[in-house]
């Protein structure tokens, strides 16, 4: 073998890599375009829940399935009282709040006991899903629908599982400690259960970014746009994820992720599958995948729905460090879930979940990020070396970056046309600019952070620093 043949082989390899990258990125974006089209269709034919239906629910309040809202709390002494007050004030005919104090090192528990007049209650746990020890339970003398569970420190998954065990209602709503639920969010999210004949097992809701909004007393007062670019990029990103991807997935019955910030589940199903897993950093994705698997393996007819209106606001990392951490964790979580449920991938036994939804996660989360990053390097290099037509390199740029702009701006247009939750034309313009700019830098940085997650997955790293956050309302 001489130098010449080596050169030819090397050129061949580069060409193949270039083609593969191009194909993966093009496929990924075409799917997104399809999702945008489906979401557009869903929204344009959507009939919003009517007032007269609401009037009926009010009149026959006992028809609404009671819900337990499970709020895990870890070192939240400063905000917990406000958060719990906001949860107690949620509109719902019959809801109960279960705060799980996850072994806080500060005085979260004392603050709760003091503020809500809690007394030790010795409540029975109906199902034991947690791995840590329960230290005590408290009920409030002032609010019959408030419980506090005190336990040893674990992860969020463990805290939520402990709470699920104490829930006595047919529905369970799982939120994050810092989720800000819209006053009628719980009501809107539980509406699909009124139309259900027993198939519905879970409902997800749209989550938006609270940075820049005015928060008072644990409730959203005024929608605003953050001054920093990073949160603005994430606003666009969340819109893409929730208004475009989730709506399309739910419409085609392939919703694979219900955000940990807000999700409504049937209690019986959660207990059947054993709640969250403790050994993954992507417990929210893993839970829904496991739900699909469980129901399909038992040949049960089931449905997972999604409410496209915003139900919950959550704080996004305002610094790159926090973003790095979060994205790495999401990536690692996705890979852990895929590894655990790899049997489902392209397995016709799991129907459209196995044949479409799981492979799409593989494309989106495993092939996508490295392929796009590699493409940015390989294609221009190969074009410069004269291995492939410069048109192809330019086309790659268009397919990844320009197409990305189109999708982001398209989602914003969808939001403005249908939901109109952006406060003003000025803010809308700011978001529009963010939607274009995010494709030059932010998007690529995210891909890089995802590579970090892939590395951690292979190192089997489970130590994750908490995401540094800015306090809400202090911006």
């Amino acid at each position, binding site marked *: 073998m001489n130098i010449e043949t080596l050169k030819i082989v090397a050129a061949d390899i580069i060409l193949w890599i270039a083609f593969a990258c191009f194909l993966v990125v*093009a496929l990924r974006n075409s799917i997104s375009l399809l999702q945008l089209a489906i979401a557009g269709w869903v929204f344009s*034919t*959507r009939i919003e829940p009517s007032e007269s*239906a609401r009037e009926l629910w009010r009149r*026959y309040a006992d028809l609404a399935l009671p819900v337990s809202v499970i709020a895990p709390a870890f070192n939240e002494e400063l905000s917990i009282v406000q958060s719990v007050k906001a949860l107690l004030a949620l509109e719902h005919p019959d809801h109960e709040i279960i705060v799980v104090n996850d072994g806080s090192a500060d005085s979260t528990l004392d603050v709760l006991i003091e503020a809500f007049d809690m007394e030790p209650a010795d409540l029975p746990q109906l199902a034991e899903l947690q791995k840590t020890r329960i230290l005590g339970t408290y009920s409030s003398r002032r609010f019959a629908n408030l419980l506090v569970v005190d336990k040893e420190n674990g992860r969020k998954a463990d805290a939520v599982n402990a709470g699920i065990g104490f829930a006595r209602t047919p529905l369970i709503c799982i939120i994050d400690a810092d989720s800000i639920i819209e006053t009628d969010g719980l009501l809107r999210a539980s509406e699909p259960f*009124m139309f259900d004949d027993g198939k519905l097992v879970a409902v997800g809701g749209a989550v938006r970014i609270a940075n820049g909004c005015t928060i008072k007393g644990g409730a959203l007062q005024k929608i605003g746009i953050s001054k920093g670019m990073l949160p603005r990029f994430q606003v666009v990103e969340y819109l893409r994820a929730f208004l475009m991807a989730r709506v399309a997935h739910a419409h085609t019955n392939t919703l694979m992720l219900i955000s940990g910030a807000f999700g409504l589940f049937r209690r019986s199903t959660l207990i059947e599958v054993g709640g969250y897993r403790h050994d993954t950093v992507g417990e929210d994705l893993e839970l829904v995948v496991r739900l699909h698997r469980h129901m399909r393996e038992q040949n049960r007819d089931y449905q997972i729905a999604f409410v496209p209106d915003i139900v919950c606001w959550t704080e996004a990392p305002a610094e790159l460090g926090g973003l790095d951490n979060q994205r790495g964790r999401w990536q690692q979580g996705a890979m852990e879930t895929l590894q655990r449920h790899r049997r489902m991938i392209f397995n016709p036994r799991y129907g459209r979940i196995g044949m479409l939804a799981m492979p799409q996660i593989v494309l989106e989360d495993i092939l996508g990020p490295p392929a796009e990053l590699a493409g940015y390097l390989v294609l221009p290099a190969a074009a410069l070396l004269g291995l492939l037509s410069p048109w192809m390199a330019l086309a790659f740029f268009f397919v990844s970056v320009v197409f990305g702009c189109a999708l982001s701006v*398209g989602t914003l*247009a969808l939001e403005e046309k249908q939901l109109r939750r952006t406060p003003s034309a000025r803010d809308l313009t700011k978001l529009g600019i963010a939607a274009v700019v995010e494709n030059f830098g932010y998007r690529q940085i995210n891909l890089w952070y995802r590579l970090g997650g892939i590395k951690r997955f292979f190192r089997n790293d489970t130590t994750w620093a908490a995401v540094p956050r800015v306090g809400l309302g202090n911006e």
Partner: protein
Amino acid sequence: MNVYQNVIIGTAVLATSIMLVFMLLVFRRYLSERADAKRDQIDRAITKSYLRRVAGYPYDNAKSWTKARRLSAIMRILPLLRGGERERLLQIVELDGVMGSILRRSHSLREAERVTAIRHLQRIRSEVCIGRLRELLARDPSPRVQLEAAFALAASESLPPPRETMRILGMLDRPPKRIDVALLRATAPHYREQMVLLLEGDLSRQWRAKIIDSLGWSGDMRVLPFLERSANDLDPEIRCAVLRASAKLNHPGAAELVLRALKDREDAVRIQAVNACATLGLKEATGTLLQMRHDEQLWVRLRVDQALRKLSTRSQEPAQLRAVG
């Protein structure tokens, strides 16, 4: 031209057109923001004009007030008026042709448009509106629109008899949903007898239970003997429904039936009986409830605890409310 050039051109065209749509939407938003103050003025002027017309004073009537703005103002004013004023405003609505445009809209080819029309019809609630709503319920090709019409009729207490409602919405061909129960309950006060007749025919036990449940909302004590008769049904689901209905009727006549059910062999029935004791405030059940704290079923024990707490705090409750309000 090669394939890549096509890709580039295609992507560019797609991106440009989406950007244009977005810019158009931003512009539309900008315009509507600028017109905000003016729109408030127009809204106030329209409202004033209608109020003056209702009261019989001379009034302004500008051509520039669009039908949509008039309609949205009327929709806000109507619920705030009562009696004669309301009647007069309804007449004016018809005179101005606003009613006609709502009716036309209810014939639109688009589902969402028809649903919007249904919501307007329901707010206005005049005879013409109810008539059109019944027509939509009976004949609209889309089940979603039919359901929406049913909601509107239920909210205005004008649903057709239960047998008709059930047939039109195809209820009997599927398991009952919560919305079905809501609709049945809404018909119960007007069609108590028809419901009892329905129960005498052959119905699945699921539906039978739901209809018995709805009877509780008839507010009519004459259904009590019927409930008594069904209290010993073999099906626990029906026994549960009887207890729910009895609790809802909130009549001392149901006490005996509830107390008996505390000893039922099915835990689901016992739970309903315990709940009914709490709702009816049956102090005489306290003894049995105290025994039931050792019931073999966890769920029963939980409900017993709740009921006992409710029975003991019942006398204090009104005092608390007064302190707040």
